């Protein structure tokens, strides 16, 4: 990583430009640029490209944007920093390369952060996801005192030791972009080029949805329905995993991903119930435990598949 690069990238002008530059940067470093997972999740980690692909021995390198929903963080679009729907940028590389820190710093330069003028710090922050039965060690990365990313070496996922270890980078895109663009309120942030014929701000795209979802999340979501959906998802997850791995035509197909979809669903339904304030402190632990049990079973199933690093059927033990 050279700090005396002759030309520093010009400052980006919009939210989408930052995303595009991250895409280009990580593509240039060899990552498969994936698309968001098509389900509601609380964080980029839930994408199967991270959760499941961090398991087993098969090498992996992926980068993607993941729309993330945290119903309790809704503020009707009024808070300058908090949203119930936001974007995370996620990078997962397995095994973690020895120069991952340098690669990460390169991505900051790519989006216009001048490392010669700013103070970048790696501050201890151990990551744990009780719902995924996962943990890792790493840092939150600070730029001038602001947390701009989470940097984690996965040690365990779904109760399985990660061998090899994946390196995970998570950028909170809105916050990072607001910092880079010098914006104080997220709704004022240029979404596309400010000189475009139809220049859109973040608020033009998302203010109304923040209001609508905040109302639904906090006041309207039908808790009885959410509860029964939670139970349906849980039951379906378990049923799929309990099914005979060999189908009617004699093919061995373990349905780890469809089962994991149900696990994700259960997790999001739990978040919605939580936002509705109908889950007590002790019940909370029980619900998290139920989702974790699903995640573990999905992980158990995934590692028996080829993508999960298992030998194809009939070969080996």
């Amino acid at each position, binding site marked *: *990583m050279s*700090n005396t690069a002759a030309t520093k990238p010009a400052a980006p002008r919009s939210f989408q430009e930052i995303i595009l530059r991250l895409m280009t940067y990580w593509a240039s470093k060899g990552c498969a640029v994936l698309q968001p997972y098509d389900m509601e999740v609380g964080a980029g980690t839930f994408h199967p490209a991270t959760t499941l692909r961090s398991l087993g021995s098969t090498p992996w390198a992926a980068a993607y944007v993941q729309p993330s929903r945290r119903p309790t963080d809704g503020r009707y679009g009024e808070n*300058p*920093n908090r949203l119930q729907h936001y974007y995370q940028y996620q990078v997962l590389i397995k*095994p*973690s*390369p*020895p120069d991952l*820190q340098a690669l990460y710093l390169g991505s900051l330069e790519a989006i216009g952060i*001048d*490392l*010669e*003028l*700013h*103070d*970048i*710090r*790696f*501050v*201890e922050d*151990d990551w744990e996801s009780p719902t995924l039965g996962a943990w*890792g*060690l*790493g*840092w939150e990365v600070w*730029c*001038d*005192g*602001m947390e701009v990313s989470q940097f984690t*070496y996965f*040690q365990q996922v779904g109760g399985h030791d*990660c*061998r*090899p*270890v994946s*390196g995970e980078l998570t950028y909170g895109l809105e916050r990072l972009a607001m*910092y880079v663009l010098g914006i*104080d309120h997220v709704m004022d942030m240029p979404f596309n080029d400010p000189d475009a014929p139809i220049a859109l701000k973040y608020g033009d795209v998302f203010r109304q949805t923040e209001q609508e979802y905040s109302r639904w999340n906090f006041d309207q979501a039908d808790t009885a329905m959410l509860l029964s959906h939670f139970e349906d998802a849980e039951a379906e997850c378990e049923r799929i995993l309990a099914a005979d791995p060999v189908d009617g035509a004699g093919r061995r197909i373990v349905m780890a991903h469809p089962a994991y979809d149900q696990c994700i669903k259960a997790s999001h339904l739990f978040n919605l119930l939580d936002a509705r*304030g109908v889950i*007590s*402190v*002790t*019940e909370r632990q029980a619900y998290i435990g139920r989702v974790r049990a699903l995640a573990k079973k999905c992980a158990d199933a995934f590692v028996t598949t080829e993508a999960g690093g298992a030998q194809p059927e009939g070969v080996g033990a």
Partner: protein
Amino acid sequence: MPDLLIELFSEEIPARMQARAREDLRKLVTDGLVEAGLHYAHAAAFSTPRRLVLALEGLSERSPTLREERKGPSASAPEAAVQGFLRSTGLTLDQLELRDDKKGQVYFAVVEKPGRAAPEIVAEVLERTIRNFPWPKSMRWGAGALRWVRPLHSILCILTTEAGAEVVPLEIEGIVSGNTTEGHRFMAPGRFAVSGFDDYAAKLKAAKVVLDSAEREAIIWHDATQMAFARGLELVEDKGLLAEVAGLVEYPVALMGDIADDFLGLPPEVLQTSMKEHQKFFSVKNPKTGRIEGFVTVANRETADHGATILKGNLKVLSARLSDAKFFWENDLRLVKSEGLEGMGAGLANVTFHNKLGSQAARIERIEALAREIAPLVGASPDLAAEAARVAKADLRSAMVGEFPELQGLMGSYYARAAGLPEAVANACKGHYSPLGPSDDVPTEPVTVAVALADKIDTLTGFWAIDEKPTGSKDPFALRRAALGVIRLILNNDLRLNLSELFQKANSGTDAGDLLAFFHDRLKVFLKDQNIRHDVIDACLAMPGTDDLTLLVKRAEALGAVLATEDGANLIAGFKRANNILAQAEAKDGVEYSYGADVKFAEGPEEVALFAALDQAEAAIAPAMAAEDFATAMGAMAALRGPIDAFFTAVQINSDNEIVRRNRLNLLSRIRQICLSVADLTKLEG
């Protein structure tokens, strides 16, 4: 004699682990070297966020040769025995020596262990140290199996003599030792070679790395205090923060900023907590007003704009944080002024405390009722205690505590004052959580004490009633801490409470006896730290009135004090002797000797004297015990030591005269009875 330099270079080591890690490195390496027969003159360990360093001066060049002799079987022993000896020593028959022994000729093996060169030993010890390093939390990375706190990138390990530096060859999981290191990540990247510690320290300095954490702390402290001083302000001392910040930077640059006027109205604790917890900023206060008016942040680099960009960024983050805090503070104040503090807590009805113990509001109702009961026992007004209990947890619904949970209680006291509540109520909001730990201050204000006790006793009896007791290392509801809190509140304030009765009042579903036994266990642990022996407490626990912990502890203290005297220790021996003789006789005769001895059957002067002494002791002990004057009672008991010793020396219990024998056994029974009226001395050890 060579000098040894070791540097373990890694990705950022958590600040809180660095001090312990450099000490562990020093100890593990020096212990290993000494164990292997090397010695050294001086050792010093250093740490930065990216390196652990050990510098040894005057290391010996090799370990000494060791000669070991082992005696084997006799020359006439069976072949198998000789072969066995050869196998165990790794020698052949012609290498053994035959020596004359008392029983004839015997084989001897003389094994010489040649000394080993320092590099070989260093490599071995360092590898063992790295593989077994006691990090509080460690991890794997990439495809390797090695564990370190964060990925380990390079190992510098050199021995330096006048002739030059030599790399100690070593390879761990693909990391090969060398003589190079890196400078500051941003200001001086790139590797360079070093030839010894002095060269290393000098080159690091040039490469913008201050190696010694004490020096980094000194720089931060000096620069920060100077900056504040130049503005007529004062840095708020915080040693923990200083050590942490020094562990986050290799090249500290202090930068000072002002807190915008908008935020100066926030309580100082809010400013300090927000800045410290979120930003690791030092607070800067105005000595005239005591207000927090500025901050110091510590960057890890110099920049061409002298930190302007960095300071601007930090200010922006701070101002976002403080805007939140201000918004919360103002909203909370508005709510409290319109709805009162009780109004703020109205939502607690919808918050579950525990699914079997109901909502927070239900809990508060119970605490209120109990605080009213306890108030007269601790000298508080029942109405004030009840009011305080009603509002003490209202701040849990405040926006500020939602954001900064560590400010619970403190915010309540601010809001109570804003709502115009009495000072005693405001103080109880803050103080009723105390004492939280063994070293936390114990509240003394009666209203606070009443609420603090009611809160903790409600929690304990509640979880006892639903059978959620602590087991082993599991204590998810911190019940041990709550019990210790109650114990310290009672003892520090000299309170006289009947705990079982309070447990019953708090929750009739509680097994009060079992909970009291739990309290007694916690009390033992607590008193052990105060150097009161556990058997002394057991002796007192066997007495009635163990509901009253103040009384119990007074008794234990008095007994402990008596046992520390010569008379006291000997009296116990005399008591035990009397008790043993009596117990044996009672078992043999099948009767209990408690009939009352009569002095008219006494035979010698010692026996007569013991009668007199027992009468005297009894006369002194009974009223003293009634007055809870344990020191006097125990003193009177200890005074029996002389007469009892004299009696046992002069008198044989077993007499041919059965009347005299029975009388003596009944006399021993009086000793037992009098002593046991003070404490159950049979529980004492030794």
